[in-house]
């Protein structure tokens, strides 16, 4: 089975700015994949190249085996992209826009049942005949997602779909997207909301300065990079040097240690005991993607600068 998305050695520079610096990534069919990274990491540039909106300086991308430059018609037919900007066409209503969008992809009246399903699934059914201009921001966002789905693409890319979207819509939207994923559609999303990626996605890629700095299943990333966090309230003390490497942060006498395995708790505690430092309070926390993200982004920016 061809991968849903295959990215090989993608470079992109805008003048002297190197936006993408050799990105390789394979996303299998049926995956729910998250692409994370701070602003300017190159996520949107990568998606724009995938969508054919930007041309790569080097490298190639294919969608279900079709090159997005040389076989762009087949590639785009299989791809639905939700743009990040909240754009709309002020001349038409929601249903007209969806019909046009499906029509551009060669789909006609036989597609109307699917359009109804999208309208229903995204809570737009009662707005179908409302002009795009008159929709609220949240409704415009739903319409934008609906437009990307209008031709029923097997590969769906959502670029920051939940930026500025309220909780109710997020739940509705993810419910519908999860259903599509369950039915076999490949979903790729970029997001700033790490908890979203953590609960929805089976695999995560993290980008930093135009490169992928981590790529693994969500579970592995959580285990490998962050493990657990030990927060000790010690007061103002001099830490033994042998546990400095585990220290993540320190604030007002509260020291946070990042632990890769549970045996390190004993190491920290015994070192403190030897140094005759008294533990006032102790907490052990599960790490989340935010910790992974911070440790990776912090780590690589430290090694670069």
């Amino acid at each position: 089975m061809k991968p849903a998305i295959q990215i090989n050695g993608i470079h992109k520079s805008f003048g002297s700015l190197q936006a993408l610096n050799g990105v390789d990534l394979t996303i299998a069919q049926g995956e729910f994949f998250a692409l994370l990274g701070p602003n300017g990491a190159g996520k949107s540039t990568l998606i724009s190249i995938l969508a054919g909106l930007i041309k790569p300086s080097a490298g190639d991308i294919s969608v279900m085996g079709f090159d997005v430059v040389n076989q762009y018609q087949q590639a785009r037919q299989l791809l639905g992209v939700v743009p990040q900007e909240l754009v709309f066409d002020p001349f038409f209503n929601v249903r007209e826009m969806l019909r046009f969008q499906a029509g551009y992809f060669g789909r006609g009246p036989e597609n109307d049942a699917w359009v109804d399903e999208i309208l229903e699934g995204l809570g737009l059914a009662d707005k179908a005949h409302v002009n795009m201009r008159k929709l609220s921001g949240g409704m415009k966002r739903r319409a934008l997602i609906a437009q990307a789905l209008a031709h029923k693409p097997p590969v769906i890319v959502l670029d920051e779909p939940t930026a500025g979207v309220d909780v109710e819509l997020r739940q509705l939207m993810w419910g519908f997207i999860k259903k599509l994923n369950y039915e076999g559609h490949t979903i790729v999303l970029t997001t700033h909301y790490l908890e979203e990626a953590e609960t929805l996605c089976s695999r995560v890629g993290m980008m930093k300065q135009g490169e992928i700095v981590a790529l693994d299943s969500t579970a592995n990333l959580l285990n490998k990079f962050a493990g657990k966090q030990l927060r000790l309230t010690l007061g103002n003390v001099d830490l033994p040097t042998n546990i400095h490497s585990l220290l993540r942060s320190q604030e007002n006498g509260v020291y946070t240690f990042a632990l890769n395995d549970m045996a390190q708790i004993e190491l920290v505690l015994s070192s403190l005991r030897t140094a005759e430092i008294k533990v006032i309070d102790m907490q052990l926390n599960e790490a989340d993607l935010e910790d992974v993200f911070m440790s990776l982004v912090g780590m690589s920016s430290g090694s670069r600068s």
Partner: protein
Amino acid sequence: MINNSNLIPNSFRGPWTLLKKELLRFWRVAFQTVAAPVITALLYLLIFSHALESHVHVYDGVPYTSFLVPGLIMMSVLQNAFANSSSSLIQSKVMGNLVFVLLTPLTHLQFFIAFLFAAIIRGLVVGLGIYLVAMWFVDIHVTNFWMVFAFALLGSALLGTFGIIAGIWADRFDQMAAFQNFIIMPLSFLSGVFYSIHSLPPFWQKLSQLNPFFYMIDGFRYGFFGKGDVSPLISLSIVGASFLVLAMITLKMLKSGYKLRA
């Protein structure tokens, strides 16, 4: 592959949908895109014919008001064909919704054809509107329908194509306004809409012959009166060649993704 529901082959449905959207876009605001230019042309007709009817001599046996009508029709056809493709593109670019078309499998040729035909149809609808209203006031007959049709078609195609170039090139509304005010308006007013270039001093006659609008107006007018300032076949060749050159430039721009795909 034929779709049974309405017999439009699927490979045509993409460009057909884009054309339909472009047609609806101007038809939804027909008051502004069709009625307004018809009114403007009729105002020109009323004022200029009143002021100049007894002062200006053009062709023997052709009253000035009758002479004026084909020029005004053609000027409106050209201006509206340009306005249709250029304003649609600049609006979609500024609003950002052009991305909906750029994400589709439509080829650059299909994109061009859809915008071109929408511009032609807008131009022809406006031209027909002016003709239908003017024929109530002015004694005017088409003597060579095919000549009228050929110039209206090629002229609106030429300006529709030029509008696509302007729409792709311009990034802001003021740049588009500059196109309108510094290129389209002077070329259309100095093309012999309101006079026969034979009435001009030799230098201005020569200069007028460098203006492609002159050939479109003159050839179109030939279809009404059977006479013009130059041979209609020369005009047709110049207009046709200009269209082909602009169409090739436009297709090259679209294929390269100039200003549309970074």
